[in-house]
């Protein structure tokens, strides 16, 4: 799409995450934007700062039994279970479209075993059109390999495993690495530091909070998998705290997410220390919201006579 050239230097919303240059700090979160094409016709995808694709694994996964989503007060629970067609199908069928968008494509990778991550990184290293990797070590519903049982433990609930996985990916690729962390821990800053020490270029905060919903008349859970991950406006205060807690303990940039609906939510995440933000659940409700927020941020900068959003980052007055 050809856009009219502006005469004056436009307001500068650009940010850098690792080696990825984004024209604005607004991204879409993994698992809420499919592989981009799903939103064609509903918005101008090429205006996003970056796109993070649905988490992929080495081999195809069929995901969890339905029902997989349920609405809860000001939010939703999901137990998708990382359904995807595997990395080869991604490269063949999804990447060609993503490549044409002209924005940084960050590929979210997941796995059940430590070695899965480096293998994925190596595979994606060799293809064009991938700007960076988001290591999803925070999705519920993965198998605990040591005990060979289904477990609710996540890699990113353990700082040693976090360090190990990030480091293995760092060795396997020169691509920008973002590590996505779960907030379901006692001390998220400790895990964040482990990711930084392992060589992560940035952090994504937060993945969903584990939760449940049930039907009292049948006494059955409303999700096929019993429990799932909570997202949406309901988790925003929790997510803000996670970002603030981590901001003071790391030097790498944070991508803040969790319940962002409006521009003010974005500003709150920036003030708590996020360099960029991602919209998740909101994409389902208002597919064009990320673009409206980008326009809003431009207006915000202008009307506050700022040159960029940088002065906001971590500016919380305590």
């Amino acid at each position, binding site marked *: 799409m050809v856009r009219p050239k502006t005469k004056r230097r436009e307001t500068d919303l650009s940010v850098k995450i690792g080696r990825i240059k984004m024209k604005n700090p607004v991204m879409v979160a993994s698992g809420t934007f499919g592989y981009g094409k*799903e*939103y064609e016709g*509903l918005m101008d995808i090429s205006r996003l700062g970056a796109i993070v694709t649905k988490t992929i694994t080495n081999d195809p996964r069929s995901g969890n039994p*339905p029902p*997989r989503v349920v609405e809860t007060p000001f939010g939703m629970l999901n137990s*998708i279970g990382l359904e995807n067609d595997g990395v080869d199908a991604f490269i063949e069928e999804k990447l060609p479209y993503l490549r044409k968008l002209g924005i940084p494509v960050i590929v979210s990778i997941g796995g059940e075993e430590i070695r899965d991550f480096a293998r994925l990184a190596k595979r994606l290293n060799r293809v064009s059109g991938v700007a960076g990797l988001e290591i999803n070590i925070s999705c519920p519903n993965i198998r605990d390999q040591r005990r060979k049982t289904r477990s609710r433990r996540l890699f990113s609930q353990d700082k040693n495993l976090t360090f190990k996985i990030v480091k293995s990916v760092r060795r396997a690729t020169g691509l920008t690495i973002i590590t996505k962390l779960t907030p379901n821990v006692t001390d998220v800053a400790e895990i964040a530091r482990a990711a930084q020490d392992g060589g992560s270029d940035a952090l994504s905060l937060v993945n969903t909070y584990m939760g449940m919903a049930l039907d009292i008349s049948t006494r059955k859970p409303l999700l096929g998998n019993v429990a799932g991950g909570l997202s949406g406006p309901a988790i925003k205060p929790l997510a803000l705290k996670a970002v603030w807690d981590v901001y003071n303990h790391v030097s790498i940039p944070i991508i803040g997410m969790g319940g962002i609906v409006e521009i003010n939510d974005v500003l709150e995440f920036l003030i708590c220390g996020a360099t960029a933000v991602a919209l998740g659940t909101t994409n389902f409700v208002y597919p064009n919201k990320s673009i409206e927020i980008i326009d809003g941020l431009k207006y915000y900068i202008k009307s506050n006579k700022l040159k960029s959003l940088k002065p906001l980052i971590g500016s919380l007055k305590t």
Partner: protein
Amino acid sequence: MRLVKAKIVSNKKVAAGRFKIRLAAPSISKAAEPGQFVMVKCSDGLDPLLRRPFSFHRIERGFFELLYQVIGRGTAALSERKKGERLDVIGPLGNGFDALSAKRYPLNAILVAGGIGVAPLLALAERLAHSVERIAFSIFIGARNKEHLLCEKDFKKLGARLYVAAEDGSKGYKGLVTDLLKKELYAKRSTLNAKVYACGPRDMLKAVADIARLKHFPCEVSLEEKMACGIGACLGCAVKTLIGHKMVCKDGPVFNAGDIIW
């Protein structure tokens, strides 16, 4: 697929807890096919948060209608929306009934509706009546009681043969619509080139699928699953099929009954 702020032309109660809303949305109605659906933001604001799916009930030039049952917060909010207001809708979505492949032969269409499941079947009946010559069609409508039997007149107007069943016996056959269907189909010896289209609760659809299989009739069913996005992005609306999980919103909501693992 488009996101439209459609003007509400009317939003009227048609029976206890049942409403019909008419929307002006030329770009959506132009592309809409029977069996497809829209995602509706029932209220402005964040409560309830997610959009709700509704099938096309009538498709006209410039307009479309939805027929809906109030069952929770979303549909309650929708029922309070006023004429003249704008409703945020995304559509048309999904794959509809394979109505036009019927064009090749004189068709005996058998429509089976359970409760609010009549909603998409009227759109289908109108399409069949207007595009297929020498069509014969029967509609089986079932509901808990006579108050909840909807659209009888609309189907009659199209020349459909009407069969009704009320579980409490307050009208027509007393019992399940699927029992009535079985009874009628087995009473007739020849039902040439028949095809069954069904929409309703899952148990009913399964029963219809079984009947169709035994009679060797092709059968299409419109399924429901909880949805978050409606566009294939969240992978929330999975249904089990013979070839793995399929998404109701994108691969359906209409499926060949034989492909579903019930």
